[in-house]
């Protein structure tokens, strides 16, 4: 059986069009299961694959995993999978989940050589448990490329002036794979904030809780036009004292969030962090003076939805 009862009730008809277009709501698929908890710092691959494929099927309205992935990515495209690996193995995008994403793309007919699993640096990837590969299915840091990964073409979007990683120029489509975590300055660091790893000067954009910088960055055509899917690793959630791993404030959550709308995904992730904070006796992010207001700014820019009335959250 593909779907749980609740998910089936909410599941879209298996039409060619994505459900968002029909409902004018952004879909966020959420899975929470003990199977998605980390074992030796990694989500078990089979569980990651099962829940991810089911999420894609719900998102796309296809009843076959390959068709679901194929509805989002076409065979000839070059697809980048941007991981989030700053905190090391304890709190980075899980290799098991990444492998499941790669399998989905391969199932859609995308060639290995057209898939790039990447982060800012190879060192961060290695620290998170990835093996660097520079040929075939590439797994590498942007810093492996000439010029440290950054050319000289200046990109501007609102308040942000920057240079993108050459990988952002090369790819046709992007998948953002953040970890569900608190961020000392931004409030939360999820699908949109993950794009800070795609530019050469992220340190310049942390004032005012990263607002409007995250939103402005994601409004640039290189991000807005390519970010097609967000897959948030919520197997282990850092609900306070992020972005580094801090065991005292981490929860083995066993979760996965998937959406085509990065704003909606970030909005839902923010809600989870706030609920875990409440359970731990901590104030909500807004009360703590760290409201991730860039999420609503992004919604105002038309990058997605940050209003629960406009988000359809489906629990697998």
């Amino acid at each position, binding site marked *: 059986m593909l779907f749980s009862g609740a998910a089936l009730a909410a599941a879209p008809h298996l039409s060619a069009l994505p459900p968002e277009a029909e409902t004018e709501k952004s879909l966020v698929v959420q899975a929470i299961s003990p199977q998605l908890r980390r074992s030796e710092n990694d989500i078990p691959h089979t569980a990651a694959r099962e829940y991810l494929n089911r999420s894609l099927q719900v998102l796309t309205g296809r009843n076959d995993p390959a068709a679901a992935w194929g509805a989002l990515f076409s065979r000839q495209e070059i697809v980048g999978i941007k991981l989030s690996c700053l905190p090391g193995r304890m709190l980075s995008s899980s290799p098991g989940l990444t492998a499941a994403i790669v399998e989905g793309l391969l199932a859609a007919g995308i060639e290995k050589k057209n898939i790039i699993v990447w982060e800012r640096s190879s060192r961060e990837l290695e620290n998170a448990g990835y093996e660097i590969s520079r040929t075939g299915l590439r797994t590498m840091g942007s810093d492996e490329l000439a010029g440290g990964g950054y050319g000289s073409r200046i990109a501007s979007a609102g308040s942000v002036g920057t240079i993108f990683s050459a990988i952002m120029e090369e790819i046709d489509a992007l998948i953002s794979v953040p970890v569900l975590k608190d961020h000392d300055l931004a409030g939360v660091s999820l699908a949109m904030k993950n794009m800070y790893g795609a530019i050469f*000067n992220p340190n310049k954009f942390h004032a005012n809780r990263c607002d409007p910088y995250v939103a402005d960055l994601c409004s640039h055509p290189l991000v807005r036009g390519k970010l097609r899917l967000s897959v948030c690793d919520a197997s282990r959630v850092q609900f306070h004292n992020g972005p580094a791993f801090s065991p005292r404030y981490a929860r083995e959550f066993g979760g996965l969030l998937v959406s085509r709308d990065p704003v909606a995904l970030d909005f839902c992730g923010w809600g989870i962090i706030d609920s875990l904070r409440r359970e731990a006796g901590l104030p909500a992010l807004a009360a703590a003076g760290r409201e991730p207001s860039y999420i609503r700014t992004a919604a105002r820019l038309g990058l997605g939805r940050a209003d629960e009335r406009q988000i359809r959250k489906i629990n697998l």
Partner: protein
Amino acid sequence: MKPLPNLSPSPRSRRVFIRNAGRAVLAAPLLLQPWAGTAAAEARPQAREARYYEKKPEKKVACQLCPHQCQVADLERGSCGVRENRGGTYYTLVYGQPCAVHIDPIEKKPLFHYFPGSQAYSLATAGCNFSCRFCQNWEISQRRPEQVQSVRMLPEEVIRQARLQNCPLIAHTYSEPVIFYEYMRDCAALGKENGIPNVMISNGYIQKKPLLELCRLLGAVKIDLKAFTEKFYQEQCGGTLKPVLDTLLTLRGEKIWFEIVVLLIPGLNDSREEIENMCRWLSREMGDSVPLHFTRFAPTYMLKNIPPTPPDTLLQARRIALAAGIKFCYIGNLISDAEHTYCPTCGKLLLRRLMFSVENEGMKGNRCKFCGALIPGVFS
């Protein structure tokens, strides 16, 4: 450490002043480009504990070097991009890691009243605490250490190289020396010990305590006063004006030699009212002896859509400064008579400049040879 031979700048004859205008061009720049290798992953910057910061609970740190006062969580970096919190200890990632090393005439900085005609062994690391949209050196100042090609050059080596290259001065310049504070400080201390004064070419965005420590070690400072409005600083630089004014006041109180540069950008900071306000403040707070340089903007980085500053704007700014009582006001990046130094008492030409060459027309020591007036600065 054994002291190196004394290379203190000595009084300059007219011939000495003229020399080496083209030397900076002839001396091949060591490096000034982004990282061009293919295995930058190996190039993780070496770290040294930072000097001005406070440890906070839960492995956080509060940087106390510049007015940003970054609160930095574990594994994160400050706004400068070159200081990183590793497990609750704050590190500079650029100590002894210059990415640009050149030999420049001191006039290029510009410092016009500080050993004119001298060559400065000039260096910079990656990073800056500002994000000026008009930065001429953005290819290093806006990058992180791992994004540029650097060389290992500890302070002892900097002193040795300056001596080998017959440079009587060392300049910390190009990017923003405040963010490589520890490196600059140690170079300055060693330079002082060995008779090679160090100068800082800076935006002045630094806290008072580290600045005071520097004042005891440096020979001179040049401060870029980017504009005279908070709006400009916030929108164009990613900083604020007031701390820069505070730095100028501190420098004034410390009696260290310093000069001020204002880059005039059409439509952004060149209104008559703003220049008048700036000059009134400078005249009142700095006195009449601090040299003021108005320099010409050239389109670059994120301000390629703005034309170069019209010469008339620069000339008008100079007139305003002189009318406000500022005795030494220069125009830079434009060939004109306003590059020269004139005696404020008798009006005679003292130092004739063309680009970066200097010719002594009327200085004797630190006085006008015609009327004997004392010329402020460090000439011998």
